[in-house]
């Protein structure tokens, strides 16, 4: 577990507090284990990355559990990960591509929609998972110690599996419709995806910490996600926005993700580095504030759960 790591930050105190017992005859077990100090929570939250890293094993187990459980006792199993984006693409292609005739940067609308939906689905399922992570694991939160930040991180990683499946579907559709993926996709998609993960984790930390105390969040989240989707260029191109608004759009980190993902994969536009830079700054700010807020609420999690 984390005895060495949790002990490390307390090691200094240990020396001074051990007192007379240190001199006690305890020859059989000479290496005295490090001690953990339990005291009132600090005013200012701190993020202990080293401890978090020492719990990576638990994190991976939770990811593995979530994936395994998600498709347990389903007839179609992992094909749900294929069906969901495909069906959504069909709906969007009919509604927005055919009826509303939304422009799609000169590529088939279905490819356009799916290339937005795949990163979006990753983001929304990661966000949903992270936001519900504490409530869904109340039994763990109230019974076992571990750095609570493990909880929202796990679904961010878990959603990646579905992303890969969706991505494969997208590639197949592109090849079928004669759209060639660019070579730079290999290089540029990972950082764009990381941006989505950072955003989902940041917002997820806020939602998870609020959710465990105010269950209203659970009802608000789907609405928030939907609203967010329509305010991001998933079903329409960024160019559809009024020109004077476009610089501000980048403050929505998902604009950077979707625009970046499309540009990287389809090559219809140059990589929007400016947008991505602004989006990354915003996402970073959300993550830091979210993690700190999460940490500051952490001491009451077990009491309000």
């Amino acid at each position, binding site marked *: 577990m984390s005895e060495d790591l949790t002990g490390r930050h307390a090691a200094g105190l240990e020396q001074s507090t051990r007192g007379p017992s240190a001199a006690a005859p305890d020859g059989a077990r000479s290496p005295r284990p490090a*001690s*953990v100090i339990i005291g*009132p929570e600090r005013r200012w939250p701190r993020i202990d990355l080293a401890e978090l890293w020492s719990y990576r*094993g638990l994190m991976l187990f939770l990811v593995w*559990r979530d994936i395994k459980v998600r498709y347990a006792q389903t007839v179609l199993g992992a094909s749900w990960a294929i069906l969901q984006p495909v069906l959504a693409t069909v709906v969007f292609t009919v509604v927005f591509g055919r009826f509303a005739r939304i422009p799609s940067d000169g590529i088939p609308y279905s490819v356009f929609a799916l290339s937005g939906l795949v990163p979006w689905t990753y983001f929304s399922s990661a966000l949903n998972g992270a936001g519900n992570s504490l409530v869904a694991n109340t039994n*763990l939160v109230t*019974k*076992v110690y571990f750095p609570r930040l493990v909880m929202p991180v796990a679904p961010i990683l878990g959603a990646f599996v579905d992303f890969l499946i969706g991505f494969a579907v997208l590639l197949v559709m592109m090849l079928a419709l004669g759209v060639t993926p660019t070579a730079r996709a290999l290089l540029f998609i990972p950082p764009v995806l990381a941006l989505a993960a950072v955003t989902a984790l940041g917002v997820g930390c806020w939602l998870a910490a609020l959710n465990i105390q*105010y269950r209203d969040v659970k009802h608000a989240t789907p609405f928030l996600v939907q609203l967010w989707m329509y305010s991001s260029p998933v079903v329409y191109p960024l160019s559809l926005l009024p020109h004077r608004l476009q610089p501000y759009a980048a403050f929505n980190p998902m604009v950077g993700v979707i625009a970046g993902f499309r540009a990287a994969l389809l090559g219809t536009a140059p990589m929007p580095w400016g947008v991505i830079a602004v989006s990354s700054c915003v996402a970073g700010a959300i993550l830091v504030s979210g993690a700190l807020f999460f940490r500051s609420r952490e001491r009451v999690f077990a009491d309000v759960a």
Partner: protein
Amino acid sequence: MTALAIRLDQLSKQYRFGARPRRRTLREALTEAAASPWRNLRRLAGAAGRGTTEDDTFWALRDVSFEVGHGEVLGVIGRNGAGKSTLLKLLSRITAPTSGRAEVWGRVGSLLEVGTGFHPELTGRDNVYLNGAILGMERGYITSRFDAIVEFAGVEQFIDTPVKRYSSGMYLRLAFAVAAHLEPDVLIVDEVLAVGDAEFQQKCIGRMNEVACDGRTVLFVSHNLGAVQRLCTRSILLEKGNLVADGETSEVIRQYLASHDTEAPAGRWIDLTAAPRTGSASARFTGVQYGSGDQLVDFSPHPGGPLEIVVGIDASIALNRPRVGFTLRDRYGGPLISGSTYALGVATPLPIGYSSWRFVLETLPLRPGPYQLELWLADSMGASVDRLQPALWMEVFDRQPRGFGPHYNPRHDGILYCEYSAGRVEAAVRHRTGGEPASAATQSR
């Protein structure tokens, strides 16, 4: 004196009182914030929420200080709400103290509930690994212990079956088996021995003994005073959050038993809304009434007489096949009689709102004395919804004293009541063979 394993220094934990529901809705928080911006601002400016007034908070644990030496097995006893669980939660770092501090040397393993993190859809094998990881074991370690764990639980044949198909006994055995193979320096255990059948409980106690003999420090909380007595040489007694006794186990237990004066009266409705409880609380016992139905004896239950238990449940969700149950325990916490709708195969749904449930025992096989009545409610999967352990202490009274003097001596006599006769056999019997009936005895029942 050996090295210390745990030291508590005036450890305290304050909770807000139950006047306000613990799960506030956002709307309430918003209206409250709008209604009292000044108070909230003051509170924010003050020490983060510590500016609350005395009367809407209570101390679950107050200024508790004690030390536990390395390798010592310490029993923690006290009534429900005395602060036992809070103490364990603080030491396991699940929640943070309000003031004071504690220091724990070495790796802490805490078992506040067996099967934490078990997932019904996963197989036994998967759950062993998952539960092990949650308890802080490394993968390699679990693999090396896997066979021992499965053998201990006795579920070899079903290890690749999802645990949702396990019987509740198998489930608990597997859960405890994983936990029993945890090898921390300091083990914190809450009530885990209260699982499984008698044979398995023996196995558990044996295992706990092994752990203790291995030189590990154990903090053991239980309502089962017999188990505490067997495992711990030293115990502490908590009462309303305060440490009131610390010493040799038998002495502490005596003090604990002497302080029991809270029997609830028979034949009257006893409000349980504020009683300490565990469970998901989506449905709660609001009250209980027990009695013999016999007005002549003040409705008090008596040996061999009937016992009727009526409970009121207020549910915020409907349960299709609720398991409503009770357990009568002796004063040491040992279970004596239990019953539930599940055990009887009663499948009456629990509606949203208020409903009453009743248990009727035709003949109560208990001697006079104090007993604990525990009430529990679980959903159709057996997950605990509400549990009061105990909900109340009930007294079984002597109805018709027969013979001479006090015919029941709680110190020497058995706890169970049964109709019997005794007398001298007229024709002295030396060898009784087979089915030959005893000749007429002088009846003096």
